[in-house]
């Protein structure tokens, strides 16, 4: 006999279901209840950095966009710092006007999601290898049993992307581009388009983090 390992076990995940909006974004469910709502707007007028919009869809294995998905993003600020005490990088500064987190649902009609934020900076990766600017995504919905994690990178950062330690872990080069958002400069604020393909041709790379 040996001693027991006394670790607890992680609670099992369950689907967020079709009515996830009630709990997390009640205005989209159709009612107003909280004084303070969490939204898809991450930056205010004082936030440092380049304003950007991220838009896209979440597409299932039949090619149909989900109209009931919920997405959250988590990102570093323009200096590449996360607004969290566990980020002990010595370069750059925390931006008190940027939490770095937001959430939204895909639209019930258009199936498009949208975030208004700033472009993040380079973040130090493991073993002193810089990570290219990126935004961490978490996707839940009816039919998704456990939240899906992925990352969005920026098409206009080709050199940094080529050296990114995470993109380089993806064995099939063709699949790396599933994480790279294209940039559209035709409007007043640059729009990055990032579709997430849950299954099949062009399936997005998801991570077990």
């Amino acid at each position, binding site marked *: 006999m040996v001693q027991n390992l006394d670790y607890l076990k992680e609670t099992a995940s369950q689907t967020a279901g079709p009515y996830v909006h009630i709990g997390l974004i009640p205005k989209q469910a159709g009612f107003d209840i909280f004084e303070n709502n969490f939204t898809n707007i991450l930056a205010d007028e004082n936030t440092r950095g380049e304003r950007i919009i991220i838009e896209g869809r979440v597409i299932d294995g039949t090619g149909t966009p989900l109209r009931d998905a919920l997405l959250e993003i988590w990102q570093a600020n323009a200096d590449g710092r996360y607004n969290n005490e566990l980020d002990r990088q010595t*370069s750059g500064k925390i931006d008190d006007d940027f939490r770095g987190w937001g959430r939204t649902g895909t639209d019930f009609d258009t199936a498009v999601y949208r975030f208004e934020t700033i472009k993040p900076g380079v973040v130090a990766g493991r073993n*002193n290898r810089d990570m290219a600017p990126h935004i961490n995504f978490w996707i839940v919905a009816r*039919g998704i049993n456990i939240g899906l994690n992925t990352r969005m990178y920026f098409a206009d950062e080709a050199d940094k992307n080529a050296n990114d330690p*995470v993109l380089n872990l993806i064995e099939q080069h063709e699949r790396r581009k599933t994480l790279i958002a294209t940039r559209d400069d035709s409007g007043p604020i640059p729009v990055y388009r990032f579709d997430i393909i*849950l299954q099949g041709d062009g399936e997005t790379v998801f*991570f077990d983090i």
Partner: protein
Amino acid sequence: MEFYQRDRTLQPAGYAPIYKTSVARSPRQSLLSLQGSLSEITGPVFGQNELGPLDNDLIRNYAKDGDPIGERIIVHGRVLDENNRPVPNTLVEFWQANAGGRYRHKKDTYLAPIDPNFGGCGRALSDENGYYFFRTIKPGPYPWRNYVNSWRPAHIHFSVFGSGFAQRLITQMYFEGDPLIKECPIVHVIPDEDAINRLIAPIDLKGSVPLDTIAYKFDIVLRGRRSTLFENRLEGN
């Protein structure tokens, strides 16, 4: 510090044909295993000042001309990690159907009535011991189209953050003694019977308010962080 690798034997697979909607919405390729970097070990921080005084009282937070119909209950417990340490100051959000099994949601068309005094959502921040609590009414079971005669057991949805984005979790709490639990395809996407049982909250008479509100206790366990110091350099500086 980085997190322990997630134990996928306790978690549902993405593709679970008994839950039909998962078939077209689950990746076919394997997830790419990633060691933790700053992007995964950090996460958003929330403060009590972001919550309203009634946010954890679903009996009152949408009441218009009286209390909602239903059994008055308290749900309380702790947010812990795999190291059996409390997860303090973390945001816990919850949502549910009303006593008749109907959600206040523009896409819910079930014929049970909306309760004019019940919104069905709330949120709380765990305290320094990881403790959270809220008051609500017990949700009802309801039918859904998986098989034509599928019924969800009564449940409350939970969303929990933890201190790092890799701990992010959504789950559902079930109620002790509900005979629909054993029939539910969504419950049974979880491959481990003990893991299912850990989603079932027992009645907690000690937590109840006599002659007023009965309590259920529901602890939530998030992933734990490594504490051994011998490792390659995570933060790169």
